[in-house]
């Protein structure tokens, strides 16, 4: 009987420890999928028809892209993943001198399952001819936003021009 009680107590403590460690993670996983959205001139035969070219690799986002935007073509560019601790930041390089910085601040404030983070979209300033080489390239902040995203959820960011189209980013955070 005593053995059972001791075993039960140890098991409960172990489960509590696992639950606690899982319930308050120190870091989160960030996925950034880069998509190029373009609009092509409609031919006479296509006029009035909603023909959308969608990269097969964008399957998980196809419904959102079709429903939310009016571009004609979506091309998968890249998918990056990184793990970052709360209070720290991670940077993902994007096409056309763009980059996105994700800085998670906390998870589960007020008991919610939301990840609070600051997302900043940078573009490196193009250097003029004859300009001296700078040790650190200057970046302009195209977008800075503070959001609370459901744990495991995705938010779409976009708008900066790239290669005749615009860049769309699907950012997923999991803690």
């Amino acid at each position, binding site marked *: 009987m005593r053995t059972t009680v001791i075993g039960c107590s140890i098991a409960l403590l172990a489960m509590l420890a696992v639950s606690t460690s899982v*319930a308050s993670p120190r870091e989160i996983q960030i996925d950034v999928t880069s998509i190029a959205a373009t609009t092509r001139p409609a031919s006479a035969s296509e006029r009035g028809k909603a023909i959308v070219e969608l990269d097969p690799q964008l399957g998980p986002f196809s419904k959102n892209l079709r429903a939310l935007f009016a571009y004609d073509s979506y091309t998968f560019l890249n998918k990056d993943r990184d793990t970052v601790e709360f209070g720290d930041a991670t940077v993902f390089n994007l096409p056309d001198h763009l980059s996105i910085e994700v800085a998670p601040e906390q998870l589960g404030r007020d008991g919610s399952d939301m990840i609070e983070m600051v997302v900043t979209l940078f573009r490196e300033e193009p250097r003029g001819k004859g300009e001296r080489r700078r040790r650190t390239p200057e970046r302009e902040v195209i*977008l800075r936003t503070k959001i609370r995203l459901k744990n495991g959820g995705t938010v779409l960011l976009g708008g900066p021009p790239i290669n005749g189209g615009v860049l769309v980013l699907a950012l997923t955070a999991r803690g």
Partner: protein
Amino acid sequence: MRRSCRFERYLTAFADGELPEKLNSKVETHLARCAACASELDSIRASDRILKGHGAPVVSNDKWAQFRSDLKLKLDAVDRESRRAARVREARPVHAPVRRRAYALAAACVVVLLMILTVGPLGVGPWRGGTAAANNECIVDSIESLAAGYTPMFFSSQDPEMTVIWVFSEEVEGGIRGEGPGAK
């Protein structure tokens, strides 16, 4: 308190003539010089004489039948008690129940841990990705652009549930257009 003599235990057998010859002679020698043992031997012999004078008591057949019946009842009761104790020992071996309970507890713990690893405790954890993917709730607390020529905005859709944070560029859009990103 009278101190007992080591020959005292042989006195009853000596009185009945049941001691071996060697021990019998030793007791005789001892009795010659030990007044206490001699007195005790006298008492034993006196008791024997009294008992022999009365003879064995006569017990009727009814008394013997009653005695046998009582004895049988008591023996049966003892047997029943022994059998009951044996059954209890058989049903509850010393280690088996503890071991069974330990196995059951271990199995329960494994199940709970698997559940935690699969869905996460209280719906929180890195394992939630699969189930939470459809829940894209997002609250935008602040939004700004520090670069010239960009105008940030955001909107949320319910079906599909998604928040879009968009930065309009004069280079692409020629300014904000009312119909949203990519509108022709």
